[in-house]
């Protein structure tokens, strides 16, 4: 065993996977090798990508019920029309009732093709209007329990069919571990995949020697925990090394925007293409707390939705060969007031909308219920009412797409109510 390990170490790469090194290599790699004899270490997995829009997106501006007279009255400076105008800055009429923000034109073909679904009136049963609390509840998946130690995406990892997960099963492209991934199932938070290596700036020889020393030490340590994590770390590192991360070329004709979100999605696409066993990925989009000068067809909101839709659409097109295995869902902690405030913005509200993209989505439709926005129909006489519990959508998407077994613990003390968003 010792010898074969050395051979493996010296060669270092994935080329030797096929020649029977079982026993000295980490179990997840061995299984992967057994599963597939090419240089991809894993067979294809389903991947769910979640994007948290922090700050609370104004769902009524992203997807506007454009015929609503009350909304028009409540937002004299924030309302766009769906009527075609010369400058082309009108809402994109989706179904005669809802209009997509003009800066989200990248979403229009996806919606028309039936791959993009929208749920409107989605939100939390907990009425808090605190960003922190609402995000916390949405990410823990327990809207009335602050002390829940785990996040819902971490619990989803625990409900996957495989007995053993890849070290890349759960990856957040964020600098700190998001609340959604808190928990006992291994998950990685990393903002740049290139950091996944042994590094000594400006000293390549030293780096190589150090990497070799560490690999040897961790491989032989008496601590089971450190040994296993060590082995997996080095294998994962080598897998990433085989891909030229820095010079990544997306699929032809695809250009990612230069934003942080696009950069995160691009790296997720790389992981998916490498078949490293990614099953749940997480990214963030910031800047949705639009109290001031929200704008209409241009301005801060327009820039945000343009980035969101262009990043997602680039990601989707980049993965053209993998689309059957990929599903993407956006989420935001709450929506914003129906009425515009004194600084041409909107304040913290209740329901918003979210987007779900995938070949198995019954798209081309706006799900959920949005009543006429007369004062009596609003929550606390000010906000779009929550008519769909976020857990209905999250659990349907995750359970169906990832084939979770026994999903009752995904959202504890809550009974699943599918809304029929995902093809069964």
């Amino acid at each position: 065993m010792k010898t074969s390990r050395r051979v493996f170490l010296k060669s270092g790469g994935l080329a030797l996977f096929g020649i029977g090194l079982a026993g000295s290599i980490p179990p997840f790699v061995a299984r992967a090798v057994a599963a597939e004899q090419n240089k991809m270490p894993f067979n294809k997995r389903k991947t769910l990508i979640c994007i948290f829009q922090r700050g609370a997106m104004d769902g009524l501006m992203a997807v506007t019920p454009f015929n609503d007279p009350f909304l028009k009255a409540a937002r004299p400076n924030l309302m766009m029309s769906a009527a075609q105008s010369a400058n082309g800055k009108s809402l994109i009429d989706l179904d005669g009732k809802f209009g997509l923000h003009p800066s989200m034109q990248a979403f229009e073909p996806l919606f028309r093709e039936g791959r993009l679904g929208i749920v409107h009136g989605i939100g939390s049963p907990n009425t808090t209007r605190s960003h922190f609390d609402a995000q916390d509840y949405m990410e823990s998946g327990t809207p009335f329990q602050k002390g829940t130690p785990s996040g819902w995406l971490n619990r989803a990892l625990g409900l996957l069919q495989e007995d053993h997960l890849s070290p890349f099963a759960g990856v957040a492209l964020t600098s700190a571990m998001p609340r959604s991934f808190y928990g006992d199932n291994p998950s990685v938070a990393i903002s740049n995949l290139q950091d996944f290596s042994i590094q000594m700036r400006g000293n390549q020889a030293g780096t190589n020697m150090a990497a070799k020393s560490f690999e040897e030490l961790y491989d032989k340590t008496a601590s089971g925990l450190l040994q296993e994590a060590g082995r997996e770390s080095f294998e994962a590192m080598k897998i990433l090394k085989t891909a030229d991360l820095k010079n990544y070329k997306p699929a032809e004709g695809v250009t990612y925007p230069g934003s942080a979100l696009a950069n995160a999605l691009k790296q997720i696409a790389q992981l998916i293409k490498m078949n490293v066993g990614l099953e749940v990925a997480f990214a963030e989009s910031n800047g949705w707390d639009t109290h001031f000068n929200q704008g209409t067809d241009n301005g801060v909101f327009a820039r945000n939705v343009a980035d969101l839709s262009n990043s997602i659409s680039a990601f989707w097109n980049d993965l053209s060969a993998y689309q059957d295995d990929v599903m993407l869902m956006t989420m935001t902690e709450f929506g914003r007031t129906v009425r515009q405030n004194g600084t041409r913005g909107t304040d913290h509200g209740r329901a918003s909308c979210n987007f779900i993209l995938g070949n198995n989505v019954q798209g081309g439709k706006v799900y959920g219920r949005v009543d006429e926005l007369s004062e009596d129909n609003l929550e606390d006489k000010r906000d779009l009412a929550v008519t769909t519990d976020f857990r209905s959508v999250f659990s349907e998407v995750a359970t169906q797409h990832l084939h979770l077994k026994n999903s009752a613990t995904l959202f504890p003390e809550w009974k699943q109510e599918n809304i029929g968003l995902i093809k069964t």
Partner: protein
Amino acid sequence: MKRIQRISFPLLLFFGFWFYSFHPAEPPKIKFPYKAAGLNDRQAAAHLLSRFTFGATPSQIDAVVKQGLVAWFESQLNATYKDDSLKSRLGAYDAINLSNEEVLLNFPKNFQVVRMAINDSIISKDSVGSKSPQYRAAIDNYMASNGFRPQKDLNQQFINQKILRSVYSENQLQEVMTSFWFNHFNVSLTKDDCSHFIPAYERDVIRPQALGNFSDLLIATAKSPAMLYYLDNFSSASDNNPFNKKKDKKQPQPAAPTGAVADTLIARLKKIRKEKGINENYAREVMELHTMGVDGGYSQQDVTEAARVLTGWTIYPFQVNRKTKALERSARFEKEGFVRDGDFLFAANRHDAGTKTVLGKQYGPDKGYAEGVELLNDLAIHPSTAKFICKKIATRFVSDQPVQSLVEKMSKTFLSQKGDIKAVLITMVSAREFWEPGALREKTKSPFELAIGAIRSLNAKVEDPYPLFNWISRMGERIYSYQAPTGFPDKGQYWINTGALLNRMNFGLALASGKISGIRADLPALNQYHEPESSQAALVTYSKLIIPERDLAKTVERLKPMLNDPELSEKVNKASQATAGNDNDMQAANKTTTTAKPARKENVTMLAQVVGVIIGSPEYQRR
């Protein structure tokens, strides 16, 4: 009675007397049974230091043996070192001594600055959010002319002081316990509402009582603005009290003839009522996380009732204009039960004056502030709390899975000494279980412990702590920013995962090779400037210095082949070129040598390499 018999009978047989059992209030005495566990003085000192400091400094084991282990531990429990050198290092940080109110005045939040700038006509409403340099400059000028500073400066000073205290404080146990209790009573910088109050929370609530009494600590956290905001109790209010009933009676009467006015008034009153409400978050977490534990034996009904007891526990208003009114009001209402204590306010008009029953005991009616104090005191010394807290302490200081017998001993002390934290620690270290082989090096260092410990191991100088914070965050522990009230989990599995582990190794390499800005490690000084004869000698010498009192034979043996690599010298030469710059003659000379004593610069590079590997090694991840 049963308990006393069980313990005292065999002891009576052996010693002829047993004092404590008959005088359960007598505090435990320190006794270190390490010899019975097969440890010598140095090994025992190393173990003590690994448990009650952020890592031993190079000469500390000898110093503790010289001082006497018990004497050292006593001095740590009393935390009486003056820490002059630390104080002078902290002198540069002006914000960490500010009161909560001063913090609010000096570090307004961005949106507050924007609002004020609009009110003062410095910027126009329409320009808010603009990315133009003029807008930015206007805001910056406005802040500077009003003496406002960005909140990130406050957070940075706060984080820096924690790093400096952990590295340099002589009162190491106090600082370790401060980390422990902060994490136990976790609040988070990620929650904007409470973030301003967190520096004072650690400074005034946690640190001074970290080695005090658990009840006091619990009550102090309950009354702190940081906790009141973090778990929302500041907003928890009821109208079930005489103040509101008076209003109820008053309002409809004068309005009786004119319906419209009355309707408006009543509607407004109802709206205020509706916005008020009991918030159970704190009541739930105080039982689940702070005292009894999730399986402690309380029900949802107990949570609801406890929340009623704690209604009206809120924050004394900070804004100056509201303050005078509040002062008048509280003076007027003092005899009606309002209580002010620093930034805390018990608002009797928000308190539920009715009768409540928690865990079978009645609280109230009409006892106001005293009900909450009574409840928290009762929770603090509940048997479930004793077990839960003692298990958590043993998990922190002994192993991820402390043995039941140890937790039981500690729980007994916790109860008999009414939550005296020192007494619990003394019972823990006086127990055989603390010293047994199964408890040695059983803990995995958290990223913070790894980073601070490595600096202490190398006697490195911290000139700017903040870059270290970034490393600690990258390794998975963004201090003060754990979002959930559970605090960071205290178990090795949580810290050791693929991404984090590589960063630990990189941290070791970066620290040893001087690549962490703000931190300077003088590796040759560690060995009194005796240059090791060879890379192998360096490995042996520095392993002993950095990981003392451990059997490192295997580690050394595993690393030796790599140091014997015939290509190594050349590789290191190259490395040396990269770091040493353009010293061509030296490179030329070195190329020909393979075994001779390396030149100085190259030796430093080699040393950095060896030390970096030691700090990143699996042995060093454990304590």
